[in-house]
């Protein structure tokens, strides 16, 4: 450690922090308490009474809370984004003619799309046509309030690589103009993009948009982070509404999740799956110089007697007592942590878990070391079935396929390997092959749909 290093670090942190200025922040108001609004009694009762779709829910009940999952808000589609075949691919329903109040005089105006030209004939001035032309116009979607005197016409365009953008065209200063929708991070339009976003207009004239939750997407059931467009101080603002569910077979558009439903995967039973969530992960490990105590067990991490020239190569042992018996075993190298609970390794064997980075490559991910406690001592088992060849004692994430390892609520150790779509994983459970604890194997529990953020999982039906 050097003073120079500390100074450089402090300066870098200060420089980064100062890039965030108060005037640029969203959320100008103190938030409401963090209870999901759709689970509050009034809303639950409302949802129970409403039998079908979101459009039947009075919008007065839609809130602006922010306790939802931090979805990749406002992140453009990745360049290599390929919609999964599992995702539904909604397309906006369009027409070539509509009627509605564009100028706010209370009388329906006539709206047509002729070729690529949007034409509005005001009831107040039938002899005069207002026009707006765009090469990308493909069809009329509907009219919605966006905070002006009349309603805006939403026009579907084809200027996205895939899907459609819904552009708002409104009457401003006597002419039709494109209006961008505001949100804290900037301005944007809304759209319908398979596997990513859906948008619609309610019969009451509210433009809605929803980001599909990448972690909960089934062939039929999806979770959607829904926002609505509303007028504030005369300008259109995209405001968060909440997490809704979407049964694409039964519902044209997303709706508040039915009472008690927290799983938007295609329905799948837990079946014979062991309890997977909530989980204990690497963030719950203790560091060297801390001690985990539980009954007559006290364990901590110490540097191995073989001192390395660099901290990166320094090995650590887990030492102490288990049930009063002195124990010691290799715990890993660099960034070593000790999980503060026993793990269940099957065959009546419990053990201790440590984590480490184990080499000087910070991007390689954590390696888990599972140490069975057998015959009053810790055993370093061989791995008879490795997920990631080349990594000792298995269970790393960051190698090969994206994987994640954790301890379930009953102490079992699981590794999930991501399949093609987010939320769909191949699940493995780590067990000793027999009561001697000398060998570990990864038992394949099959494909599981899991969302740790919402604490929900089950078998997948697709």
């Amino acid at each position, binding site marked *: 450690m050097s003073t120079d*290093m500390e100074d450089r670090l402090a300066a870098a*942190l200060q420089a980064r922090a100062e890039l965030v200025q*108060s005037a640029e922040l969203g959320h100008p108001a103190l938030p409401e*308490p963090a209870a999901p609004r759709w689970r509050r009694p009034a809303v639950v009762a409302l949802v129970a009474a409403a039998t079908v779709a979101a459009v039947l829910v009075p919008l007065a009940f839609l809130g602006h809370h922010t306790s939802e999952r931090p979805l990749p808000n406002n992140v453009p589609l990745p360049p290599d984004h390929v919609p999964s075949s599992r995702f539904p691919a909604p397309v906006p329903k369009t027409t070539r003619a509509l009627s509605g109040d564009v100028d706010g005089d209370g009388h329906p105006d006539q709206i047509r799309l002729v070729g690529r030209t949007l034409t509005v004939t005001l009831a107040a001035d039938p002899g005069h046509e207002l026009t707006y032309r765009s090469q990308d116009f493909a069809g009329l979607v509907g009219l919605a309030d966006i905070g002006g005197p009349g309603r805006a016409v939403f026009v579907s365009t084809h200027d996205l690589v895939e899907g459609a953008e819904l552009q708002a065209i409104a009457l401003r200063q006597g002419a039709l103009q494109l209006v961008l929708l505001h949100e804290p991070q900037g301005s944007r339009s809304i759209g319908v993009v398979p596997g990513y976003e859906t948008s619609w207009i309610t019969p009451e004239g509210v433009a809605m948009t929803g980001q599909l939750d990448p*972690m909960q997407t089934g062939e039929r059931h999806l979770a959607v982070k829904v926002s609505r467009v509303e007028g504030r101080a005369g300008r259109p603002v995209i405001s968060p509404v909440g997490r809704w569910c979407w049964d694409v077979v039964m519902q044209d558009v997303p709706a508040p999740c039915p009472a008690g439903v927290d799983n938007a995967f295609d329905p799948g039973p837990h079946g014979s799956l062991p309890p997977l969530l909530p989980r204990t992960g690497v963030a719950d490990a203790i560091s060297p110089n801390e001690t985990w105590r539980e009954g007559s067990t006290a364990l901590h991490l110490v540097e191995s007697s073989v001192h390395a020239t660099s901290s990166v190569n320094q090995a650590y042992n887990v030492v102490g007592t288990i049930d009063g018996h002195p124990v010691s075993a290799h715990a890993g190298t660099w960034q070593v942590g000790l999980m503060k609970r026993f793990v269940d390794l099957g065959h009546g064997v419990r053990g201790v878990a440590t984590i480490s980075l184990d080499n000087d490559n910070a991007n390689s991910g954590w390696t888990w070391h599972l140490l069975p406690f057998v015959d009053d001592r810790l055993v370093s088992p061989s791995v008879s079935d490795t997920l990631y060849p080349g990594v000792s004692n298995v269970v790393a994430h960051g190698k090969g396929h994206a994987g994640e390892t954790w301890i379930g609520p009953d102490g079992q150790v699981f590794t999930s390997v991501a399949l093609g779509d987010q939320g769909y994983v191949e699940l493995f459970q780590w067990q000793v092959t027999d009561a001697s604890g000398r060998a570990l194997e990864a038992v394949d529990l099959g494909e599981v749909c899991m969302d740790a953020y919402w604490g929900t999982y089950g078998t997948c039906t697709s």
Partner: protein
Amino acid sequence: MPVTAGRTLTEHDLGELYAAHRLQLVRLAVLLVDDRGQAEDVVQDAFAGLAAKGGRLREPDAALAYLRKAVVNRSRSVLRRRRTARGYVPPRGLEDARPDERALLAEEHREILAALDRLAPRQREVLVLRYWSGLSENEIAETLDISGGAVKSTASRALDQLEALLRKDEA
């Protein structure tokens, strides 16, 4: 904001806390999660959590400490979830900061922040709380739920590793 000991937090107290400390807490979260939007959500959630339990906070004077702890914990959750969703959401390290933000940082600062990004989450938390928030060892220990000794050793090792990573990058 002066919250008088012995009484519960009122909505007014919370409003004052929000006005006085939101920016610093968002900056803290940005340093932990490297993403402004998520940092704002983290802080908003922390205040929402405090609002939900405002009247029941055992020590109203500790409201700021509670918020700081909530921000650290929620930032940790963001990082955990980001790992889970890595296949969908590109990792948002410094390289994913807004282009104008990148351009505003000096090369030396960028290097250090990139190295900081490669440390273990707890090491990063300790360094940020110590060298940016300016917290004492006891305050860091309280925020992270670890011992004072662990704060000291974690900071020391984290600085060593930061230095090693920078040397390695330079080589």
